């Protein structure tokens, strides 16, 4: 039997089809449509220690000059290039990749509450053909965000410094409230 009331539960919406492929640009592009993300609501993180576990599985396609690919977890509205980066990995993109998989697994935990609240992210990013990265890849630290803001989401965004037709597509998304 379960130990107590801090059970893990799976947050809706539950993905049932691939998200649309997203063409990368030099600025952040949201890789997951807002319709596939749980809206957290104002003061969702209502006690210190509350945490979400996030798992996102997708693929990437790179052209001839992808440059650096920046993978970021962003707290904000879910729109392109909007919000505060909670954690990121910046790595050299492999050229001319037709389809490679990636997988992000991380926990986002509240470290302080309110309008000057803070979230701490720790996890792993797997990039097929490139390797495994801590997420963030250096200097983990809590990031100050306004946890009283409504209609916020935690989304995955990416950009590339190159100039060719890189794209990403999400196949599976899982948000679990850990407590």
């Amino acid at each position, binding site marked *: 039997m379960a130990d107590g009331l801090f059970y893990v539960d*799976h947050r809706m919406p539950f993905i049932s089809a691939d998200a649309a492929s997203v063409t990368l640009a030099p600025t952040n592009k949201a890789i997951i449509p807002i319709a596939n993300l749980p809206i957290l609501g104002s003061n969702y993180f209502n006690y210190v220690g509350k945490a979400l576990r996030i798992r996102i599985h997708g*693929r990437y396609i790179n052209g001839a000059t992808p440059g650096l690919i920046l993978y970021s977890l962003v707290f904000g509205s879910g729109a392109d290039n909007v919000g505060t980066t909670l954690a990121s990995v910046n790595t050299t993109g492999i050229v001319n990749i037709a389809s490679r998989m990636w997988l992000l697994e991380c926990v986002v935990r509240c470290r302080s509450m309110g309008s000057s609240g803070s979230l701490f992210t720790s996890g792993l990013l797997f990039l097929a053909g490139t390797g495994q990265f801590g997420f963030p890849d250096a200097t983990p630290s809590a990031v100050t965000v306004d946890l009283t803001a409504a209609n916020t989401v935690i989304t995955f965004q990416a950009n590339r410094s190159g100039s060719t037709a890189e794209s990403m597509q999400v196949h599976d998304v899982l948000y679990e409230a850990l407590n």
Partner: protein
Amino acid sequence: MADGLFYVDTRAPHISGDVPSVTLAVTNKALIPVANIPVLGSNYFSWVGKAIRLTMFGRITTGTTPGNGQWNIYWGNGADANGTIIGSSGALALTASQTNVSWRMETIIRCRALGATGALFVTGEWRANVGVLATSLQPALIPAATPASVTVDLTAASVISPQFLRSGSTGEAMQVHDVMYESLN
């Protein structure tokens, strides 16, 4: 407190001892006996988006010519190579002459369509001791490329059976020490 009613729960049976070691072959071998796998029942996947997380930890031993190893996740009766493959890794070069090195595998199996022509979609990863799976081959994501859902009969009372094959010819074996099936919603 938790957010809502889609709580995650571990499915019985709960493993309490190592399952027998499985000698690998060029055809798929079930790594877990049916007795250690939850029978989900007909129409277990009763809404689109319902998902199960399968996590295993085990060991692998390789001989002098193990060849390539490959994961295949089956929807079937749990017997060797029975049923429909719903997710596979790439064929991964196994390093020869490794003894009892550890690995961990995790996948999520999600329903994308219901009924007799239902569909399951598998995403996951295999992490192994770098002695047997070179760092250049890791992360070994499942699938290796081009994920797609697979049509299966979800009205059948089938099980999700993780299976493995190798292309080589020597005495490779795998053994599962821990297995967990979690209903995610």
